[in-house]
C-alpha cells in the first residue's frame, strides 16, 4: 500500500516537474541569451490556458485547443517582444522587473476584461480520461501519464534543437557572445523574437495542459512563475539542463513533501499537530532546498559562476 | 637592501589547461620599486590579483610584513597596509573626486558603521583626503564628478585613494596608462619619491618609466619569471631580449 502510494506520488511529482520544466525552459533561455528577467512569463502560461479553454469550448477538440494555446502564447510572446521587451535588453534588471511587472497587470486585467472573473474549465478529452494500469498493477490517470511523456519528449526535442540545429547553434553563440553573433551577420533581433516566442509557446502549452487538471483563471500563472524562478535558481540561470534537473527536483520535493512530511511528523506528534506542522513545513520545503543549494553553490547546480 | 615587505613563495595558478602562474617567487623590499614587465597575456594581472587577495593561488603562499596572508581576502590585506591601484579604474564614478578620496580615508580608519554624522563634514577624513589629492595634483578637481575625469586623471585618483590608506606597500597595475607625456613624467617623479615611504610593486607598460624608476625588474613570460635584476642586468639578459625586448629591437 505504502509502496503503491510512493510510486503514485513519484509519478505526480514527475508530472509537476515536467510542467515546471516547460515554464522554466523559456525563462532560462530568455535570460541566458538576452539577459532578460521576465516576470510576465506566467502571463503567457495563462494566455495559453485561456486560449485552449476558448478553442475547446467552440470546437470541442482537445488537440485543436492545444494548437490554439501554442499559437496564442507564441503570438502574444512575439508581439510583446517586439513592442516592449526588446527595449529592455540593454536596461538593468530593475527596469526589466518593473516593465514586466507592468505587463502582468496589463495581461491579467486584459484577460479579465475578455473572459470575466469566473474560472473556465477545460476538460480532459474522453480518449485520455480514466486510469491506466501500469506494471505492478498500479492504477494511474492516463492524462497525467501522457503529460509526463509529452513533457519528456519536449525536453528531448529542446535539447536536440539546441545541440543539433542551426537555430540552436545561433542560440548557443548568442549565450556565449552577443557581439560575435551580430558580427556573423545573423539577424539578432529576429533571433531574439523567435527565442522569446518559443519560450512563450512552451509556457502556453504548459498552461493548457495544466488547465485541464486545474481551473483556468486569471492569476493562475503567478504561483507557477515563482516556482519556475526557484527552479532556475537551483539549476543555474541560463542552463537548460539545470532547468530540467531543477524542475524534477522541485516537482518531486514538493509533491513528496506534502504527502509524507505530515505522516513523518505523525510518528512524533498527535495527528492534528502533525498535519499542521507537516503541511506548513512541506510548503516551505522547496525554498529550504533552494537556500541549501545556494549556500553550497551560489550560482546554482549548472550555472557558471 | 631593505627588509622584505611583500613576498610570493612559489605561487601557481591554473585556469583549466592554462597555467597563468608557475611557481612565481618574488620579493618586494623596503625602499624599492620592483617593476613587473612582460608581454600581454604573460600573467601579470593574475599575479597581481593573487598578491592583492582577489584570487587564491592553487599552491604556494603570499607573505606580507612577515605574516602568511594567503588565506586573507582583499579587505583584510588592505587593512594590513596593502595599497592597490587598478589597471581599469575601479572608482565610484558617481562620486566626486573628493568623495572617492574620503572613502579611502574612511576605510583606513575602519569605522564605516557610523550612521548619523555627515561623512563629508568630518574634518580629519577630509584632511587626509585633500592631502592625498594635492600630492597627486588633483586638488583643483576635488568637486568634479569622477566620471568626468580623463583616463589619466582617474589613474591619479586611484593613486590618491591608495595614499589615503597610508599603506606599507603599494601594488600598482599600470598607473601610467592613459597619461600623456607630461602626466607620465610627473607621475614618474612622484613615484620616485614615494618609494621612500613604502615600496612599490609596479606593473607597467611604459618602458621609459620602468627603466628610469625600477630598482629591480622581473620579467614574466607565460606565467613564469624568467629573470629578475637591475635595469642594466635585464637589458643585457639574452633570454629577456629573445622573449620580450627582442620584438621591440627588431622594429
Amino acid at each position, binding site marked *: 500500500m505504502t509502496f503503491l502510494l510512493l510510486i503514485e506520488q513519484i509519478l505526480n511529482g514527475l508530472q509537476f516537474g515536467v510542467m515546471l520544466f516547460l515554464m522554466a525552459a523559456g525563462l532560462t533561455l530568455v535570460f541566458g541569451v538576452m539577459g532578460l528577467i521576465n516576470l510576465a512569463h506566467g502571463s503567457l502560461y495563462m494566455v495559453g490556458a485561456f486560449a485552449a479553454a476558448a478553442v475547446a469550448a467552440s470546437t470541442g477538440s482537445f488537440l485543436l485547443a492545444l494548437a490554439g494555446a501554442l499559437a496564442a502564447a507564441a503570438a502574444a510572446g512575439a508581439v510583446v517582444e517586439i513592442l516592449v521587451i526588446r527595449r529592455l535588453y540593454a536596461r538593468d*534588471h530593475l527596469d526589466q522587473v518593473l516593465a514586466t511587472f507592468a505587463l502582468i*497587470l496589463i495581461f491579467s486585467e486584459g484577460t479579465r476584461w475578455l473572459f470575466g472573473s469566473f474560472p473556465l474549465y477545460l476538460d480532459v478529452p474522453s480518449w485520455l480520461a480514466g486510469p491506466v494500469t501500469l506494471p505492478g498493477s498500479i492504477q494511474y490517470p492516463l492524462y497525467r501519464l501522457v503529460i509526463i511523456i509529452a513533457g519528456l519528449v519536449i525536453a528531448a526535442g529542446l535539447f536536440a534543437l539546441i545541440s543539433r540545429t542551426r537555430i540552436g547553434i545561433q542560440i548557443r553563440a548568442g549565450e556565449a557572445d552577443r557581439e560575435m553573433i551580430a558580427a556573423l551577420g545573423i539577424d539578432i533581433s529576429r533571433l531574439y523574437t523567435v527565442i522569446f516566442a518559443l519560450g512563450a509557446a512552451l509556457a502556453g502549452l504548459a498552461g493548457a495542459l495544466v488547465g485541464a487538471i486545474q481551473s483556468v483563471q486569471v492569476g493562475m500563472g503567478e504561483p507557477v512563475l515563482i516556482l519556475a524562478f526557484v527552479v532556475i535558481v537551483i539549476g543555474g540561470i541560463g542552463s537548460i539542463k539545470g532547468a530540467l534537473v531543477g524542475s524534477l527536483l522541485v516537482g518531486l520535493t514538493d509533491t513528496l513533501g506534502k504527502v509524507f512530511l505530515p505522516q513523518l511528523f505523525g510518528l512524533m506528534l498527535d495527528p492534528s499537530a502533525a498535519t499542521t506542522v507537516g503541511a506548513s513545513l512541506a510548503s516551505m520545503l522547496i525554498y529550504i532546498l533552494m537556500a541549501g543549494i545556494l*549556500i553550497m553553490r551560489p550560482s546554482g547546480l549548472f550555472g557558471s559562476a | 637592501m631593505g627588509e622584505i615587505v611583500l613576498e610570493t613563495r612559489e605561487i601557481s595558478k591554473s585556469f583549466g589547461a592554462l597555467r597563468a602562474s608557475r611557481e612565481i617567487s618574488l620579493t618586494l623590499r623596503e625602499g624599492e620599486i620592483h617593476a613587473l614587465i612582460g608581454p600581454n597575456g604573460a600573467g601579470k594581472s593574475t599575479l597581481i590579483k593573487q598578491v592583492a587577495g582577489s584570487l587564491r593561488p592553487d599552491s604556494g603562499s603570499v607573505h606580507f610584513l612577515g605574516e602568511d596572508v594567503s588565506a586573507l*581576502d582583499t579587505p583584510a590585506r588592505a587593512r594590513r597596509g596593502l595599497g592597490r591601484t587598478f589597471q581599469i579604474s575601479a572608482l565610484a564614478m558617481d562620486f566626486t573626486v573628493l568623495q572617492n578620496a574620503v572613502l579611502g580615508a574612511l576605510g583606513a580608519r*575602519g569605522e564605516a558603521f557610523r550612521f548619523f554624522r555627515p561623512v*563629508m563634514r568630518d574634518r580629519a577624513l577630509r584632511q587626509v583626503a585633500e592631502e592625498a589629492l594635492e600630492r597627486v595634483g588633483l586638488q583643483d578637481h576635488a568637486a568634479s564628478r569622477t566620471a568626468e575625469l580623463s583616463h589619466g586623471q582617474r589613474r591619479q585618483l586611484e593613486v590618491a585613494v591608495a595614499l589615503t590608506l597610508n599603506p606599507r606597500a603599494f601594488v600598482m597595475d599600470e598607473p601610467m596608462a592613459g597619461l600623456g607625456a607630461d602626466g607620465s613624467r610627473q607621475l614618474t617623479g612622484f613615484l620616485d619619491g614615494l618609494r621612500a615611504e613604502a615600496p612599490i610593486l609596479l606593473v607597467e607598460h611604459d618602458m621609459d618609466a620602468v627603466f628610469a624608476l625600477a630598482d629591480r625588474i622581473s620579467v614574466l613570460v607565460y606565467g613564469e619569471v624568467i629573470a629578475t635584476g637591475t635595469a642594466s642586468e635585464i637589458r643585457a639578459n639574452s633570454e629577456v631580449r629573445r622573449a620580450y625586448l627582442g620584438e621591440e629591437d627588431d622594429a
Partner: protein
Amino acid sequence: MAATRERLINAAILFALLAVPLWAWIADEPFVITLATRIAILALAGVGLNIALGLGGLVSFGHAAFFGIGGYAMGILASHAQDYTPLMEWPLAIEGTRSMPVIWLVAMAAAALAALVIGALSLRTSGVYFIMVTLAFAQMLYYFTIGWPAYGGEDGLSIYVRNVFPGMNTLDPVQFLAICYALLAVALFFTARLARSPFGLALAAARQNAERVETVGLRPFRLRLVAFVISGAITGLAGALYADLNRFVSPAMFNWHTSGEIMVFVILGGVARLFGPVAGAALFILLENYLGGLSDYWQAYLGFLLLGVVLFARGGLIGTLAGREVADG
C-alpha cells in the same frame, strides 16, 4: 540647480501632505484622512525599501516579507491581548499587548531578524539571482502563513480595536494620521542622515564598485547586509502600522504583489530620491482611487503608466521634475 529644484519639490510634497489632511479635517472628510494615512504608511514601507534599493543597489523583490512580518507582529500581539491569552507560557511567560510602541519595537526587531537571515543567504548571490531569491523567500513566508492555522491561516486575523498610544486617542483618524506622519518624518530624517553618513558613503560606493570598497579595506557584504536589515526593519514598522490601519492582517501582506507595489512606489517617485517613495506612494494611491472609480480594470491603466515610466521617464516623478541627481559634497 537640480538640487535646489529637488528641495523645492520635496517642500511642496511636505506641504501637500500637511495641507490636504488639514483641509479634510476642517471640511470633515474622513475618507481623505484615511487616504492620507495609507499614503504615509505605504510611503514608509517604500522609504525602507529605498535604503536597500536606492542606496545599496539591492533589487529586493521580497520586501513583502518584512511588511508581512510587521503586520503579523501586530496581529499576534494584539490578538493575544484581546483574547486575554498568553502568547507563550514556556520558557518565558509572554503576554500580548495593545501598546503601539511595544508592537512597533517587536515588529521592527522581528523584521530585522528575518532580514538578517534572508539577507545573509540572498546576498551570497547577486544580480538576477538576488531578485529571484528574495522573491522566493517572501513567497515561502506567504505559503507558510496560509498553511499555519494558529493565527487565522488563509483567512487572516481581525483585531477589533485599534491599539493604543500613550496620551492619544488612536481611534480618531486625525490622531492616528499624526502618529503615522511622525514616524514617516523620523524615517525620512534618518534616511537623509544615513545617506550622508560614513555608512552611506561606503554603501553607495559598494553599489557603484564593490572592488573599490574592498581595496580600501571594507567588506561590501557586511555593508549590504546591514543596509538590508535596516531596510527590512523600517518596512516591518510600516507593516505594523498598516495592520493597525486596517485592523486586519492576512497572508496577502506577504504576497509578491505587495513586494511589487512597494517597489513601484519607489520607482514611480524616483529611485534613491529621499522623497521618491512618498511621491510614488501618493501617486499610486491617488491613481488607485480615481482610476479605480472610473474602471474595474484600473490596474491595466496602472500597468501602462508604469511601462511608460520605465521606458520613457527614467528617474520617476522627482527625477523628471528635478533633473539629474547631483553628487553631494
